[in-house]
């Protein structure tokens, strides 16, 4: 058995966001982090490894610097890493990305007791689409929004979150699970893990590596192969400044309430 985990390196939008003059995000100027939901997926896989000794393979599509993130995941305890990186893959939307990642996962090899893990969604796109689309391309069942996992042989029982509750779902391997951050608290890299991570295997899959897979077709990958395109992108206007109240005492509060009262807001 093995666990294959799809991971994305994303700009850290929680801090200061650098925007270029043309209004697009300056990714180069921003710190990158491992996507939160994906970390939960890695942790879920590592816990299965702790319990069963299975192998954990992490796979990421991205530019060469994403190797740094993969090394960190190896330092957390993953066994092997695959970086899917090629100019031909650039500009892919979720559909095209799922084609490429599905081809990469096929190349890694899926046995009938394997589980593919993804994060629910990435914080830069928030689409939650790539996981289910990979599952479709691999022809395997999916469960998304997974908040609890129990593996017994080839039977996987999961808790899937709904807005107002949850479903308990049983699924057979091979299957794909998309994990929410609430699933677990990802472990830290360990000192020993860090000392070993550069000795662990990290393979780069480029266009040449994957091109024989029927999923890898110039009409379905990259910017040109993506069904969706950006028509316009723009920044929201800065909202006009409101009224800053002076002071923070009783008089201030009373003044505010009287304004609200006069305007029939309260």
């Amino acid at each position, binding site marked *: 058995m093995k666990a294959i985990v799809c991971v994305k390196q994303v700009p850290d939008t929680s801090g200061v966001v650098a925007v270029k003059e043309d209004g697009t995000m300056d990714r180069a100027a921003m710190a990158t982090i491992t996507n939160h939901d994906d970390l939960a997926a890695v942790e879920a896989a590592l816990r299965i490894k702790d319990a069963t000794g299975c192998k954990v393979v992490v796979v990421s599509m991205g530019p060469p610097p994403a190797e740094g993130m993969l*090394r*960190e995941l190896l*330092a957390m305890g993953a066994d092997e890493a695959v970086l899917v990186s090629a100019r031909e893959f650039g500009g892919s939307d979720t559909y095209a990305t799922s084609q490429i990642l599905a081809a990469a996962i096929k190349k890694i090899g899926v046995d009938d007791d394997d589980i593919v893990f993804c994060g629910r969604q990435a914080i830069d796109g928030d689409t939650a689409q790539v996981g289910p689309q990979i599952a479709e391309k691999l022809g395997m069942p999916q469960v998304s929004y997974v908040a609890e996992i129990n593996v017994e042989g080839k039977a996987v029982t999961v808790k899937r979150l709904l807005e107002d509750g949850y479903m308990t779902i049983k699924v057979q391997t091979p299957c794909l699970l998309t994990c929410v951050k609430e699933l677990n608290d990802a472990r*830290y*890299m*360990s*000192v*020993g*893990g*860090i*000392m070993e*991570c*550069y000795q662990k295997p990290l393979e780069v899959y480029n266009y040449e590596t994957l091109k024989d897979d029927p999923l890898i077709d110039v009409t379905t990958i990259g910017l040109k192969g993506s069904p969706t395109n950006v028509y316009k992108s723009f920044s929201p206007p800065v909202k006009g400044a409101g009224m800053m109240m002076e002071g923070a005492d009783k008089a201030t509060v009373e003044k505010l309430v009287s304004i609200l009262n006069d305007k029939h807001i309260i």
Partner: protein
Amino acid sequence: MDLHLSKEQEMLRKMYRDFAENEVKPLAEWVDENEAFPEETVKKMAKLGMMGIYFPKEYGGAGADVLSYVMAVEEMSKVCGTTGVIISAHTSLCCAPIYENGTEEQKQKYLPKLCSGEWIGAFGLTEPGAGTDAQGQQTTAVKDENGNWVLNGSKIFITNAGYANVFVIFAITGISTDKRGRKKKEISAFIVERTDPGFSVGKHEKKMGIKGSSTCELIMEDCVIPADRLLGKQGKGFGIAMKTLDGGRIGIASQALGLAEGAIEETIKYTKERVQFGKRISQFQNTQFQLADMHAKTEAAKWLVYSAAMKKQNHEPYTMDAAMAKLFAAETASDVTRRCVQLFGGYGYTREYPVERMMRDAKITEIYEGTSEVQRMVISANLGVN
């Protein structure tokens, strides 16, 4: 000298920072207020390999280097001085002397448990009458008819004592007479376990800072330990103690460095938010110059500390380097934290902000594991000034 961190060291720094920020910082105030030893944090650090960072894997260590260890103490101390010294005392004062002086059997017996954090280590040299003057020891160790050692005496101000399982203890094993007929105490080092008969942990000290660190008295009343607990050769204890303290000083210097860096970080954040006379106080030149001075001094301390660590790693002589690092880092920490409290003004004196705690924590770095005066003695002696 290569001043670049390796890829692994960069990753370690990031991991330490994440850990400190998420696991250590949220508890720092509670640890201080309640004088609570952060047991859970120690367990978490142990799981990540932080209780045996620079020892080889064959002894259960993480296989990293001394600088990687220094950075761990530094990063923890940035947010909590107590947590920093727990690692430092355990690693430098207990694991290190066993690793450097122990027999293969001793290393196999103690290091895996210490490095995994299952056991915590401590070091017992100081006595009521023997602080800076380590020769003033009173604790004795005598061989009984079965070949066991019997220890009698007490030690004070022992870091980690309340929670430690293994202690490196120094005791007088004889009196020798030198060529000129002067009598000299012959000191030896021993490994004592908490469960050994006749061994007990006494009074817990109430301190000004590093309040969560467990500082206690150790009492040995006819404490019987097997012959194989002698660490190093009989009579070589003083040398072992001094060499151990050389390493320990690098740890304490790292703690001091972290405290200074932590205080500066907090102060920069605060001065950018606090408004007086209609301006953020970071806009005042006094704030700017103070912080510039503090940062320059702290960076200088950092390079002294790192360079001592690298020399130890490379098995070069580092006694003077460790003394300089500790002297300068400790005095920097005290100076910087005091000035940070000043920049915070009234708020700095309250427990609402962490700088007053950092100031209290910093003071001890000028005192333990050799006072600043001792460091000056070591440095001047190494300069041949006597």
